[in-house]
């Protein structure tokens, strides 16, 4: 394979001078908005933040985040997707890019822009042209076997969150097994079992975000596409 000439300098798509763009996607109801609210609460005192939401009906998520009072209302923007939440984060990302660029023009202190996808099915992931890194969110209430079933976001998002671990006893899910299953389909990519009542899990999430921000600023973060397609498996050795 030919070596990319700039591989040893900045990654081809690195933009260390602008804010990190972090995507949050996953099925409806798994806790994407709460995850973003949590990050806002934890990070707002140390980082310049903004959020772009892509909900079904315009600003449901934006209103939730505004009412949570975790960020100035004007730093939370809603993008209409015309009933195409998948398109808006994947093949025509224009509306989202414009919203991010407007925020960047209006606020010169931004370190992190979070983009929340409209709750979609398991196949939806962000284009690497839209976000620098992405988090895929599952929850224990969706069933212990979802992680094992896999899919592009579960297998190859930069971080997989298994959310609401505090609910596990009530829905009959073995969290440790679910995290083990998820880790098995993700090779070495990280998995965090998260609960807002579990401080250690929140600290692990914050440490991950800060490490991604560090590599973004260093120009070494390469946005990767989890892809819509199944992993290519060679039927035979070449």
């Amino acid at each position, binding site marked *: 394979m030919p070596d990319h000439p700039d591989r040893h300098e900045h990654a081809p798509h690195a933009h260390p001078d602008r804010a990190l763009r972090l995507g949050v996607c996953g099925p409806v109801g798994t806790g994407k908005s709460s995850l973003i609210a949590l990050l806002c609460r934890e990070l707002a005192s140390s980082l310049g933040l903004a959020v772009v939401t892509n909900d079904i009906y315009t600003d449901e998520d934006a209103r939730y985040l505004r009412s949570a009072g975790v960020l100035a209302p004007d730093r939370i923007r809603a993008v*209409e997707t015309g009933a195409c939440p998948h398109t808006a984060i994947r093949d025509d990302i*224009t509306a989202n890019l414009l919203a991010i660029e407007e925020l960047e023009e209006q606020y010169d202190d931004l370190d992190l822009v979070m983009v929340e996808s409209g709750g979609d099915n398991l196949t939806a992931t962000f284009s690497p042209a839209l976000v620098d890194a992405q988090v895929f969110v599952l929850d224990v209430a969706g069933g212990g076997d979802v992680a094992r079933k896999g899919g592009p976001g579960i297998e190859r998002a930069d971080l997989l969150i298994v959310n609401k671990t505090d609910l596990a006893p009530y829905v009959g899910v073995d969290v440790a097994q679910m995290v083990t299953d998820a880790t098995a389909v993700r090779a070495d990519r990280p998995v965090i079992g998260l609960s807002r009542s579990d401080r250690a899990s929140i600290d692990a999430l914050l440490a991950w975000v800060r490490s991604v921000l560090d590599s973004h600023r260093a120009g070494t973060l390469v946005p990767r596409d989890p892809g819509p397609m199944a992993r290519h498996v060679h039927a035979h050795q070449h």
Partner: protein
Amino acid sequence: MHPELMLMLLADARLPVAGHTQSGTAEAALANGLTAYDVPSYLRTRLRSVTLVEAGTAVVARHRAQVGEPLADVDVAWAARTPSGALRQSSRGQGRALRRLAERLWPDALAPVGELRTPSRAAVLGAVSGYLGLGSGSLARLVGYDDVQTVCAAVLKLAPLDPAVATGWVAGALPEIAALAAEVADLKTPDQIPAVGCPQIEAWAEAHAVTSRRLFRA
């Protein structure tokens, strides 16, 4: 490059300019009592009012861009003929999206709108079309056709029916699009841009802009 191919490129819904976020005010119209049965007449009304203004503006912008004259007063003339702030804002958003694409593909095409901070879609499209060699008639037909397809595609999402019915509406509107193009293709100056409002569409657009239950931007 053959202008017909450029026309196809610009008319294609797959052009990444966030076309999927637009309904041509159809979402608000359906929310306020328009039925799928009314869509053909809704298309005709648009082609004789708001879309005629947009097409006329685009044609004049194209002419100005080609002769190297400024576009600022073209955009002012468009704004004066577009009384709904929501429609102006929507058009400026689409103008920004198209400008973003053109910055990557045809940066020289944008010189005529360089002085405008938030040009209308018609101004940007006029400048780009002139640069790409589209004739004024082709440009006017593009504006009309895109409007019709935008409405019909959104209606298919909002009030689903056999898609062949919606494509039938588009086909049925083609003569009206041709008539629109004939009306504006020779315009050269801002004062010639048709001033035809449609208060009902404007009122719907205004109502849509303040609802919190939108699927489409406008």
